[in-house]
């Protein structure tokens, strides 16, 4: 049994033409038993910034609180909005701080930067980031999700099409 697989999750984010989409399942399980069907794993951090967190449910919720706190503090101090790439760098720092006792969560960041350009990144539980311009996945069935993305993803899809694609992957 792996701690990262205890509660179960499937998160996916992809980029389209001047847009990003992010989707996640809503199951909360304790190993094989399903305990809730309405568990939030994607959190809105700003008008154009979302973070999806896969892994241990407790850490998912704690990280949501921590990230909101740090982002709010940043925006108060700097008197400006936090850009997606800065948010991603900050998240990476926060995770690495706990290198020898990590948060059991593997996040996915999706947002639009100032020029409306899509931003995607994913990290492992200690903050090693990967930046892509197509899609990122995280959770307990990444194998399946990667397979779907690699075969079906097309770049520069319009907004409506991107969200339909995402929904297709989740089903």
């Amino acid at each position, binding site marked *: 049994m792996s701690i990262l697989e205890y509660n179960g999750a499937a998160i996916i984010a992809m980029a389209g033409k001047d847009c990003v989409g992010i989707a996640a399942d809503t199951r909360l399980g304790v190993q094989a038993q399903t305990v809730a069907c309405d568990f939030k794993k994607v959190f809105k951090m700003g008008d154009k910034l979302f973070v999806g967190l896969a892994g241990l449910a407790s850490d998912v919720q704690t990280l949501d609180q921590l990230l909101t706190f740090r982002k709010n503090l*940043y925006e108060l*101090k*700097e*008197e*400006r909005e936090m*850009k997606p*790439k*800065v948010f*991603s*760098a*900050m998240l*990476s*720092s926060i995770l690495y701080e706990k290198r020898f006792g990590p948060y059991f969560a593997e996040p996915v960041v999706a947002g639009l930067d100032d020029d409306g350009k899509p931003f995607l990144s994913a990290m492992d539980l200690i903050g090693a980031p990967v930046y892509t311009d197509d899609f990122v996945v995280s959770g307990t069935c990444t194998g399946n999700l990667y397979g779907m993305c690699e075969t079906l993803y097309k770049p520069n899809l319009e907004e409506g099409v991107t969200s339909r694609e995402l929904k297709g992957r989740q089903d």
Partner: protein
Amino acid sequence: MASSGSGYDLSPTTFSPDGRIFQVEYASKAVASSGTSVGLKVSNGVVLVTEKLLNSKMLVPGSSRRLHGLDRHAGCSVTGLVSDGRQLVNRGRSEASNYLDTYGIRSPPSVLCDRLASFAHYFTLHGALRPFGATTMVAAYDEDVEEYTLTMIEPSGQAYRYFGCAAGKGRQGAKTEIEKLNLQGMDCSEGLDK
């Protein structure tokens, strides 16, 4: 003026009856008796100039820097006690570096100067410590709004943004001259000439 502080000027943790902290004011006096520094914010950047007084013919010209880089996008000049200035510069470098490590982008001038000013201010709050006898003028570039800024951080921890500022022995004369100039209408090389 010198004797009016008697009894209330021994420690930065004591206010005088008229609400002043003498130790901090004395620190500013240390700055005021050192070589002059001038900072000008012009149309396409910031010019920092300092006067380096060589007390002896034995001194190697070019030693003991008073202009330092804090990061790729920020630099500062030190006026006052050079060794105190070193501490401030080192802290400034470390803050800039930490910001880059955490947030992945260069520190905005307001944040860098705020941290440096808070650091200087900290030393005005403890009985076991004395304020820095140095003023730093920080010139920095904000890549977000594409603007240059000039901030002067005094021993008290006060930090203000300036179009033009001066510190040190010749500051009164320098300030008068600066006010006469049209800073927005010149670029860096013209500013340096003035």
